[in-house]
């Protein structure tokens, strides 16, 4: 959990979205939304708030884009069950572009 960020209640989840997507979020890139259980429902909730945003981190088939990382309480969902990761009970979801060195 980011320092200074109030923890979401069990009925909500705190979502942090990359500032690269500020065209969609404006200055509100950290929001609390009603708790969600799937990536699909997260995408829908975010699209309701920021129309079109889910397409930037999910492809047409609902897969996470190759160079985007989604962390659930600090853990990359690729290290969990990927797009089938259960988001129930998550306190914080962070959506960031990946960074490759070289």
């Amino acid at each position: 959990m980011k320092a200074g960020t109030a923890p979401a209640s069990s009925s909500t989840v705190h979502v942090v979205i990359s500032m690269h997507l500020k065209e969609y979020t404006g200055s509100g890139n950290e929001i609390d939304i009603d708790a969600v259980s799937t990536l699909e429902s997260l995408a829908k909730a975010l699209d309701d708030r920021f129309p079109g945003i889910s397409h930037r981190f999910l492809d047409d088939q609902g897969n996470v884009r190759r160079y985007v990382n989604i962390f659930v309480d600090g853990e990359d969902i690729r290290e969990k069950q990927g797009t089938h990761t259960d988001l129930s009970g998550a306190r914080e979801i962070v959506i960031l572009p990946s960074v490759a060195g070289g």
Partner: protein
Amino acid sequence: MNKSSKGARKEGETLLMVGTKKGAFLFRSKDGRRTWKASGPFFKGIQVFHMTYDRRTGALLAAVNSYQWGPTVAISHDMGKTWKNCTNPPRFPKESGLSVQQVWHVEPGLEDRPDEIYLGVEPACLFVSHDSGESWDVDASMMNHSTRSKWSPGNGGLCLHTILSDRRDHDKLHVGISAVGTLYTENNGGSWDFQNKHVLADFFPEAEKYPEYGQCVHKIVRRSDRPNTLFQQNHCGVFRSDDNGRDWKNITNNLPSRFGFPIAIDSGPSPRVYVAPLEGDFARIPKDGRFSVWASDNSGKEWFPLNRGIPKVSYYDVLREGLKSDGLDPSGIYFGTTTGQLYSSRNRGESWSSVSDALPPVFSVEASAA
């Protein structure tokens, strides 16, 4: 969507829109194409495959491909000062199993359908917007084409890169797909037929060199005064059709190479056709290291080089969207290179001047005159 005229194009102004590997740039000339004022980069650091101007609305439209955030179409109503991504970007339906990988070419529709815009994507398909680019519908007939499973990508990917409307009938449309060939619809995308007769594909075995489809078309243009005449630069030569694409004739003739990517045509009663030959198939650099635009004034019977003002040593590559005319009289012609040079000519290519020598690698050039 805000359609204010703030920053609108001025009467008599010529626009040059340049898509690059690291963003898009706009060049504006108010003095008869003598000097250019640049703005950009828009979408800094992000690939812009194509940017064009919609005369009907005064909007700039950009096909934007982010490594991280995927493809989208962006719209500006103030000449690039501000941009807005479309709300419902092009997406294949889930049951198709397909995902849009790149957006390649955005094409405003005809005057009688002012909100219609076409989009070519990879994997190859046509999308249509009926609300000035805010949302996009897949062309189901092309998505479900009976031969799709046999379509193979060219080196640049399985991309739909050319969209040619027909001013005589808004339901008629040609598209070009690498490496599938030319497809044609007479019912606004309700069904698609191949139009590749006598177009060579000699990367296939001997018996299959003129297949129904599988041709590597690089770009197609239409002659405005005789709209049944089409020209295409293909992997295997330059071709002309005089019957709206039903049959094609090889017009490579005296070009130094059959290979190249772009083809352009200017307007007027005796239009000039322009190509940019490269040593093919594999070197893909100008012959003897000197880049020339080659042109024909007799529909491809003979070709001649246009290189006054271009350095004698010029290992330039120009991609399929990188050579365009502006439709003025005399025609302006422009090209952008993969090494960042942008050239213009105000006299149909008889002489060239540098507009910029230090852009990121240029993917596309589009010109629009008032």
